[in-house]
């Protein structure tokens, strides 16, 4: 049995290698470098992974090999490749790929994006030809891009939603990417967020203490940062204010998600999946049911007239 699996594993790896060799632009570039070494190239080779695309992000997501990366043989001027990642020949050091690089996803998920399709780009425009209102932003945000990509569609050639445990990894990765972007917004916009006002408060509390956190620069998360401490405190205080106004709550309802809900199971059975393979579906159904419950309580008045309600998701 173990032998069987080993054989199957090496067959699959060989097949995948052959497939990526023939269709993935990043792989092709790396193979070119290998061939150069085998031919006895003596100059130093560096690889430049390009961060800029000239094509329209709405129509093309299949970059050509000249768009994804360039080889640099010998010396070069680093001034004109600000946005690009330079991969050294043999440094032992690791270089970070910025979340804004189109290559961020394809380099990490060759089995989701086998052709090296572009990930999120900062220059994808909105299409507002038949929408009533316009939004002020010019370009699609990271969150919107990811939300678009993790949908299941009729003519489906998306690997992402069927990748099971790799989908879980992708979702965590994508979420942390969005959160990183939100955190760096808070870090870079401390002035506009009026962090100075918060600062005065916290310093008054801490005055007189030998406080190690006074060393270095403090970054303050505003109350608009969903999930941050200020956000939680603000909502808690709102809830307490409501209690002070109309009295303490009569009902404390706990509503939990069940991954055996028929809605979830019916759909997953169709695709031969388990609930853990599509965490997004369970969440969406939970939200739908939660909204229904709250509507039932408020409008349907199953417990009588409602004066106020609050809910918290954990």
């Amino acid at each position, binding site marked *: 049995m173990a032998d069987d699996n080993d054989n199957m594993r090496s067959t699959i790896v060989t097949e995948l290698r052959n497939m990526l060799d023939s269709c993935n632009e990043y792989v092709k570039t790396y193979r070119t470098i290998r061939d150069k070494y085998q031919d006895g190239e003596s100059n130093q080779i560096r690889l430049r992974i390009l961060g800029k695309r000239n094509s329209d992000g709405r129509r093309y997501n299949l970059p050509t090999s000249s768009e994804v990366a360039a080889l640099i043989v010998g010396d070069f001027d680093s001034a004109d490749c600000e946005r690009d990642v330079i991969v050294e020949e043999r440094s032992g050091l690791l270089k970070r790929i910025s979340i804004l690089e189109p290559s961020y996803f394809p380099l990490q998920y060759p089995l989701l994006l086998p052709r090296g399709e572009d990930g999120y780009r900062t220059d994808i425009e909105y299409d507002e030809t038949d929408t009533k209102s316009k939004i002020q932003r010019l370009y699609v945000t990271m969150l919107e891009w990811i939300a678009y990509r993790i949908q299941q*569609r009729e003519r489906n050639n998306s690997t992402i939603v069927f990748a099971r445990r790799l989908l879980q990894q992708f979702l965590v990765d994508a979420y942390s990417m969005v959160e990183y972007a939100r955190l760096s917004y808070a870090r870079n916009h401390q002035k506009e967020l009026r962090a100075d006002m918060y600062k005065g408060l916290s310093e008054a509390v801490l005055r007189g203490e030998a406080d190690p956190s006074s060393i270095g620069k403090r970054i303050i998360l505003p109350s608009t940062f969903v999930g941050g401490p200020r956000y939680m405190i603000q909502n808690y205080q709102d809830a307490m204010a409501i209690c002070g106004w109309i009295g303490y709550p009569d009902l404390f309802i706990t509503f939990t998600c069940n991954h055996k809900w028929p809605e979830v199971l019916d759909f997953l059975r169709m695709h031969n999946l388990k609930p853990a393979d599509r965490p997004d579906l369970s969440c969406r159904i939970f939200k739908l049911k939660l909204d229904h419950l709250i509507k039932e309580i408020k409008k349907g008045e199953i417990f009588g007239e409602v004066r106020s309600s609050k809910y918290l998701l954990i």
Partner: protein
Amino acid sequence: MPDRICHKCGAYMWYDERVQKDYNPSQPLFSLCCKQGRVKIAPYPDLPETLSDLYYKNDKKSKFFMENIRSFNSMFAFTSMGGKIDNEMNSGKAPPIFVMNGENYHQIGSLLPEPGKDPRFSQLYIYDTDNEINNRMRSVGYFT
């Protein structure tokens, strides 16, 4: 079952996920998938046959692939993930989950490994490609 298809982008949606829930239009608009049609991105092209067989054929090989898809993916990934992946949660009977601690980032190494070290990630595409299949399997902990 999702009971609607977004007429802007084709995503499977539930009627109750529509925007402006106070109205009951026959052709609802959705924000969750495409911002009511504002986000229009070209779909990814069809999968290469090898991969679509592994994903959808549902035979023995494909089942084996899907069970181990994360390890296959990391055999071929160019970059490594910076966060700490916590596998302790998956030892019990509960459904598998992916837990990561710490800051997440993707890193790419140099073209060649340092002398005396095994090739990793993107270096597998260049270094010692005569034994590539074995090197790849060894990179995720299978000894051959």
